[in-house]
């Protein structure tokens, strides 16, 4: 080889040090918040999910799963994830195919969690272990249904653009003539 591929390989290595994957204090806080959500949703009014034949626990599993697919710890609150999950459950209410996809998918995920960890998916404390479970089902329709919803619900959601410091549409403001060439650190 006539050029140095090691420079490329250096870029291919895992970009997040393994230590960062351990449950940090921040991770614990996120989990605490999640428990609070779990408590609130468990005793709160039932929504479309109940009509879809999905239990409060199952809905919670979907929300945990959603947070694990695109993890944003304290960067994003639960709200946007809950919105995506509830939209899918709303669809499931009126669509047998979606309902079956969700219920079968949840049952499969739970079975995998029980088999490998001896506990339910939400009870697996280590985010890496939960990711491992999701990686084992990532090519299936159930997982991709949730992922697809999140891709739009998180990153194509105009309400969240400011959170990502993204401007979105500019033509109605005359474009970025005042800012496009500004940079202060270079």
């Amino acid at each position, binding site marked *: 080889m006539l050029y140095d591929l090691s420079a*490329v390989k*250096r870029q291919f290595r895992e970009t997040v040090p393994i230590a960062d994957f351990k449950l940090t204090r921040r991770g614990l806080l996120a989990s605490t918040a999640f428990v609070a959500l779990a408590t609130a949703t468990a005793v709160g009014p039932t929504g479309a999910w109940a009509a879809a034949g999905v239990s409060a626990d199952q809905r919670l599993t979907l929300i945990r799963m959603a947070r694990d697919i695109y*993890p944003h710890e304290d960067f994003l609150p639960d709200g946007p994830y809950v919105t995506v999950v509830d939209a899918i459950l709303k669809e499931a209410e009126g669509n047998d195919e979606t309902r079956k996809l969700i219920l079968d998918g949840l049952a499969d995920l739970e079975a995998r969690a029980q088999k490998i960890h001896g506990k339910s998916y939400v009870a697996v404390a280590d985010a890496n272990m939960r990711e491992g479970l999701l990686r084992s089902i*990532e090519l299936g329709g159930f*997982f991709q249904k949730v992922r697809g919803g999140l891709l739009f619900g998180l990153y194509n959601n105009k309400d969240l*653009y400011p959170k*990502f410091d993204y401007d979105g549409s*500019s033509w109605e403001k005359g474009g970025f003539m005042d800012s496009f060439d500004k*940079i202060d650190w270079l």
Partner: protein
Amino acid sequence: MAAKIDLNDDSVVVIVGSGAGGGTVANELAQKGIKSVILEAGKVLSLDDIENDEWAMFSKISWLDKRYSKGSWHGAVNHPNLPAWIVKGLGGSTVHWAGVSLRYQPHEFKMKSTTGGIPGANVADWPISYDELAPWYDKAELKMGTTGAVTGMDHLPWSADFKVLAEGARRIGYSKLTAGPMSINSTERDGRPACQQIGFCMQGCKIGAKWSTLYTELPRAVDTGNCEIRTDCMVLRVEHDKSGKVTGVVYADKDGNQHKQKARVVCVAGNSIESPRLLLNSESNMFKDGLANSSGQVGRNYMTHMTGGVYATMPGKVHMNRGTAVAGIVRDEAHHDDSRGFIGGYTLEKLALGLGFLSAFLVPGPTGWGRKVSGAMEKYANMSGVWICGEDMPQEINRITLHDSEKDQYGLPVPNVAKTDHPNDTNMRNHAYQQMSYIYNALGATEIYNLPAYPASHNMGTNRMSEKAEDGVVNKWGQSHDIKNLFVSDGSQFATSGSPNPTLTIVALAIRQADYLATQLKKGEL
């Protein structure tokens, strides 16, 4: 003034497609007083349809008819039904193109002579040279409003995003750093405004500062009274008589009703998937392998450019979305020098992606989730990136074929689009990844992400031009070797891909072809 052309008028030129090739040929012919009918498969688009929203525009303008990605490229898994990202709509892919208007370098027309041939690749010389095309490039640049010497229009000012790339490039010793040539007005010109740095160029320019046939060639052609445009009209096949000359086309209108438009000449300009597909679908007892296919090269040598992306998290904010999508070009690796481990060259084109597209393409396909993606998105404002665009090896195995059994909504066999890297492509991409890692590390990047190819927007080579009839589909005028009144007017004529973005060359060839057509029609040769 719009012409109303009778279905039985066999004196007209029928043009299939309204993009860079078809739209340009139509206007050039119209200005010379030659009547044409454009059959556009897509719907009418206007500036009112343009939104600054990546996915909204993707749904609105993309060619989403059923197709299959094949071959060993990752898209066969990750983009199974989207081998290419091109437009189905009036103006074709000139609505979506970014505006980069580089000329092919002289040696890029003669890659076989330059290299002596490449094992495993179907490398060929174009039957024309740079010098022959140079005056037509001038005309194309004047038509399109390309920044640079010919129009005298300055390149656009450097955006923050391009300053970042250029500084990194400078630190590793690069010097060919320019914000053009782009066919985007840097000053008001030709009835179109100067760029307002809106961004979203590839979702359609909201103000028409970027050249597109949608609001230049097409209305001008219609204004002459010599051109009729029929949208939502999908051409199903090209028909011919007993002598083998084409006589017209059969198309389906919006309601699915079929019509035959007679023609004296047919110009096929449906982009490098649809054009060969149409020729293959037009098979007959006389032409059993499809029209214009005595060489067997129709549909083969499909090229997309050797591409990839590199994005990186910078130490400070960049806001790459602010300003033109392709804000500048680095050309230090564009030359031919096989000591780098590959033949041909590549450019590094600054490419801004919005939040929506970056999240989908950073790690494309069903496995693109997890901390790597979400962590990158949290640093969106600090991100900068490039698109790598280099010479792609023509290979016979990379080709458009017709599905054995599956039909689309028009009843036509669905196209299979196969693409597999040649080792030269892989070596060049790895070289580009390496150079980009040097550039971004020189800037203190905290993360660097190498992206594989996107669904192809540059599609070339499937009706290649050649000196000899046995080597290709069309001659140096884009005229079929087999059928003299059948022309190919789009990028499928390209014999090799070169490294430059193809639109400028498509337009230069189209202007030249229209000139030839007019001469031949006048002489009674067609």
